[in-house]
């Protein structure tokens, strides 16, 4: 049976072909094949969803979270550093840091990013590579302290580089011109080596920790705890929702004992010179000022020091990173003489009536020792004049009478040869020579001929400026040596060494030191009107004069100038040590000490005056005279 063709109109054209059944049964088998294929295809598809959704939903669920949940650190700012009056020395300023969110980072973006931000591509690539083994949510800091140009670049390219994350971070702002750089120190990103140390176990990679100075010593106090914000972001990096916030904890402020007024004057006085100034309150051990020159700019470290800058500092032959106040170990020269004098009196070797004659030199142990005024001489000298004129012959003689045992005992007593324990890292101890020391390190006995040079503060004796300030300050207050410290604390918590000195002996020495400044001694440059300044110069040799003078005496070989001064004579409240490297003579250091002392007492006067005015005003107000008295501007 034949059926009409699908379309009657087509028939004429197709009529030459043999007619065929036009039913669909011929294809039934093949349609069944198609149906089976359909079943298989749907089963195939279902198997795919079964594998993804039923067998591994956790795996993909986790990846979906990684996609959308980002952890952004909230920096906990470091505490500020304040001076003794609460004035801010180190503050934080807000700066922008650029992070790389590695979840969405693309390798090929690094180069244009590095170019746009003026960074070294290799450096950046290496930094990204270093964290490759860590989880993706760990971000990489691309650049800190973004300049306005950098910010503009980031803002303009956020669409192209969704991996860029801008966060605000508090940054350390240190005083300019390297002021107090050695005291404050600096911070930096924790290093790999430090991470291995037990002290740093609680810190994480990327944390900014103190590396030097107060920043290092009091890192735990100053350091804040970073918080974290967990946010949901979309594929463009836009924050859609905040899931959790761990608040950042601010670091605690730290109040130093430093007096900014005194410090500033000390800094200025040391301008253009190498050396150090230390000012202490001998009644408490509080450090009022501490300067070391040459200095460096801690702001260069505040981010990540450039290798060029770091090399410059390392290669500098003057070692700007050395805190000379606690790390310079130098011969104290004549500043040691007051201690020798005290030893002479205390041991009863001599009394204040004892005199000796200076003819410009003295022969001791087969060697003729010159006085510094040689070829002239000081004539016959009492102890008072011996100190005032810093006569070497007087102290050569006294020293050899005392012997090395007595000298080293009193050296130990005032703290030489041991660290003061100040709350700053890397303090050095200096050296107080003794028989025991000679035996231990040189395996030879002490020769009596070595004693005279120790007695004038030369030889193997070395001290740091801080040790000297503590030693003289302790004598000045009558035998109480308080531990120098940088951070304010109650007096009863300050360690103190005491020795029952005879007040008479102390008075003899102190009067001598008064004479140095006020009776035409070597320290007249330290004199101040209306203030009884006492002090002692020191001119310590780097090498024997016999060697230096013929060689022409280059700048490097000139003597170091020392001065240690305190005031007032009775109940001293400040002791200042100035070390002026290659200053030539102690009198040049005396001028520095005078400036610092003046700053201290000027301020004290001003404060007293202000307080008096205030009291008067309060009193006036109390009497009901408010309208008439007013508040007089303090002058």
């Amino acid at each position, binding site marked *: 049976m034949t*059926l009409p063709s699908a379309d009657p109109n087509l028939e004429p054209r197709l009529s030459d072909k043999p007619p065929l059944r*036009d039913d669909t049964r011929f294809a039934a088998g093949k*349609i069944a094949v*198609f149906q089976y294929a359909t*079943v298989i295809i749907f089963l195939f*598809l279902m198997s795919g969803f079964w594998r993804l959704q039923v067998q591994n939903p956790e795996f993909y669920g986790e990846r979906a979270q990684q996609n959308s949940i980002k952890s952004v650190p909230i920096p906990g700012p470091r505490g500020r550093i304040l001076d003794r009056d609460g004035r801010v020395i180190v503050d934080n300023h807000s700066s922008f840091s650029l992070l790389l969110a590695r979840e969405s980072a693309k390798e090929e973006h690094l180069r244009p990013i590095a170019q746009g931000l003026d960074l070294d591509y290799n450096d950046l690539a290496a930094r990204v590579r270093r964290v490759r083994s860590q989880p993706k949510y760990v971000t990489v800091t691309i650049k800190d302290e973004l300049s306005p140009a950098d910010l503009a670049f980031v803002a303009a390219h956020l669409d192209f580089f969704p991996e860029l994350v801008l966060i605000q971070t508090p940054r350390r702002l240190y005083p300019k011109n390297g002021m107090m750089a050695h005291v404050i120190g600096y911070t930096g990103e924790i290093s790999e080596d430090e991470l291995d140390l037990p002290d740093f176990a609680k810190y994480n990679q990327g944390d900014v920790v103190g590396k030097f100075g107060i920043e290092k010593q009091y890192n735990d106090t100053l350091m804040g705890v970073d918080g974290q914000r967990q946010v949901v972001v979309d594929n463009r990096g836009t924050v859609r929702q905040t899931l959790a916030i761990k608040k950042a904890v601010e670091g605690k402020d730290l109040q130093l004992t430093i007096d900014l007024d005194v410090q500033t004057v000390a800094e200025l006085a040391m301008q253009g010179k190498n050396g150090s100034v230390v000012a202490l309150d001998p009644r408490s051990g509080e450090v009022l000022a501490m300067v070391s020159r040459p200095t460096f700019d801690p702001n260069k470290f505040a981010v990540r020091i450039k290798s060029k800058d770091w090399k410059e500092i390392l290669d500098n032959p003057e070692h700007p990173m050395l805190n000379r106040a606690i790390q310079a170990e130098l011969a104290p020269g004549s500043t040691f003489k007051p201690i020798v004098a005290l030893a002479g009196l205390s041991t009863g070797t001599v009394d204040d009536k004892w005199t000796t004659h200076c003819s410009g030199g003295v022969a001791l142990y087969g060697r003729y020792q010159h006085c510094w005024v040689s070829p002239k001489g000081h004539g016959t000298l009492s102890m008072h004049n011996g100190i005032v004129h810093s006569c070497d012959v007087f102290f050569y003689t006294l020293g050899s009478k005392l012997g090395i045992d007595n000298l080293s005992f009193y050296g130990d007593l005032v703290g030489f040869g041991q660290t003061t324990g100040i709350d700053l890292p890397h303090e050095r101890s200096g050296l107080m020579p003794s028989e025991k020391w000679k035996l231990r390190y040189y395996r030879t006995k002490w020769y009596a001929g070595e004693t005279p040079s120790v007695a004038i503060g030369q030889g193997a004796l070395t001290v740091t400026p801080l040790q000297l300030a503590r030693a003289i300050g302790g004598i000045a207050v009558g035998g109480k040596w308080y531990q120098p410290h940088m951070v304010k604390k109650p007096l009863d918590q300050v360690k103190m060494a005491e020795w029952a000195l005879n007040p008479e002996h102390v008075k003899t020495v102190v009067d001598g030191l008064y004479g140095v400044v006020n009776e035409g001694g070597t320290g007249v440059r330290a004199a101040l009107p209306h203030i009884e300044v006492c002090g002692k110069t020191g001119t310590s040799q780097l090498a024997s004069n016999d060697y230096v003078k013929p060689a022409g005496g280059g700048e490097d070989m000139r003597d170091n100038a020392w001065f240690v001064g305190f005031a007032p004579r009775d109940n001293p409240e400040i002791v200042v040590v100035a070390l002026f490297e290659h200053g030539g003579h102690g009198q040049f250091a005396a001028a520095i000490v005078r400036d610092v002392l003046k700053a201290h007492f000027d301020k004290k006067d001003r404060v007293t005056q202000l307080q008096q005015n205030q009291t008067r005003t309060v009193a006036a107000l109390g009497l009901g005279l408010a309208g008439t008295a007013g508040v007089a501007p303090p002058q």
Partner: protein
Amino acid sequence: MAKYLSPRDIDWTVLLIVLLICGVGVLQIYSATRDTDYTSAWWKQIVYVAGGLFLMWLMMAIDYHSMLHYVPALYIGSVAALVITYFIGEKAYGSKRWIPVGFGVHLQVSEFVKLVIILLVARYLTELRTDELEIREMLKLAGLVLVPTALVMKQPDLGTSLTYLAILIVCAFLAGLRWKYVAAIAVVTVVVLPIGWQFLNEYQKGRIVSFMDPESDPQGKGYQLIQSQIAVGSGGMFGKGVTKGTQTQLRFLPTAHKDFIFSAFAEEHGFVGVSILLSLFFVLVMRIVQNAHTAPDRVGMYLCMGVAALLLFHILVNVGMVAGLMPVTGIPLPFMSFGGSSIWTFFLALGLVNNVRLRRFVN
């Protein structure tokens, strides 16, 4: 003949399923486009579906036999339109597929060409009046189909062009292409594939490479595949809930209201939802095959099977891509993906099936 037609004879099962799928699609489009530039997409889609129903009704009304008259004209018109698209088409997503027809409407010609291919193949195979398709005839027909296929591939739109070949292959198989020819075609394909590889675009190559190894470039070419699998996998058994899918809502999933709509659906409705939706699609295909069975003549059978093949191919490639079983080829999911051209084409195809069904009781 028209007087015998009755609305009762429309395949209501198919229509109901299709409307269900469309409803799920609209809901999913709404969910995927919240707070984006496309928030109006869901109601636009409703308009498209309404228009689609109208087009389906139109398509049912005209006897499919008389449609076959116009096959040569439609074919030439299609090729011409594709050539015009090639020259004046609007470029989007790196390919020229759309021609503006005024009033801001852009039509994707290649979608409608699918119907022309179905009509062309059905008429050609019927007119052969043979139970065994000769290879010579097969090659002629293939030549006719390859012209629009090549034009669409050139747009470039690999996915759509492959749908034409899918229709051709299924219908040729039904027409009695001998097994040895089927085998021969398979062998030739295997041989030609590496050569054809040379003619693919960089991005087409990239898609196939990333299908083989998506993790080789997770941020680049493998991105879509990986994000889609993450979306599907993280949906788990019961899904994250409507508008709760993170991959969809946070836009990690690319084109979540278009080609990857099934991925978004799988994330928010889980394996249970996927099973139900795939079952609907399965019943839909099977019902259309059933209509092919009951077709009054061969042309009707070919038309229905052409539509079934088209649908099955779309489902296989789109859903397979979403599940990571197929490489990324941008073809939409029938009745769900957002887009007027696609929706209308499938409603027209549905009209074609109903057209055949309404006339199944001739004689």
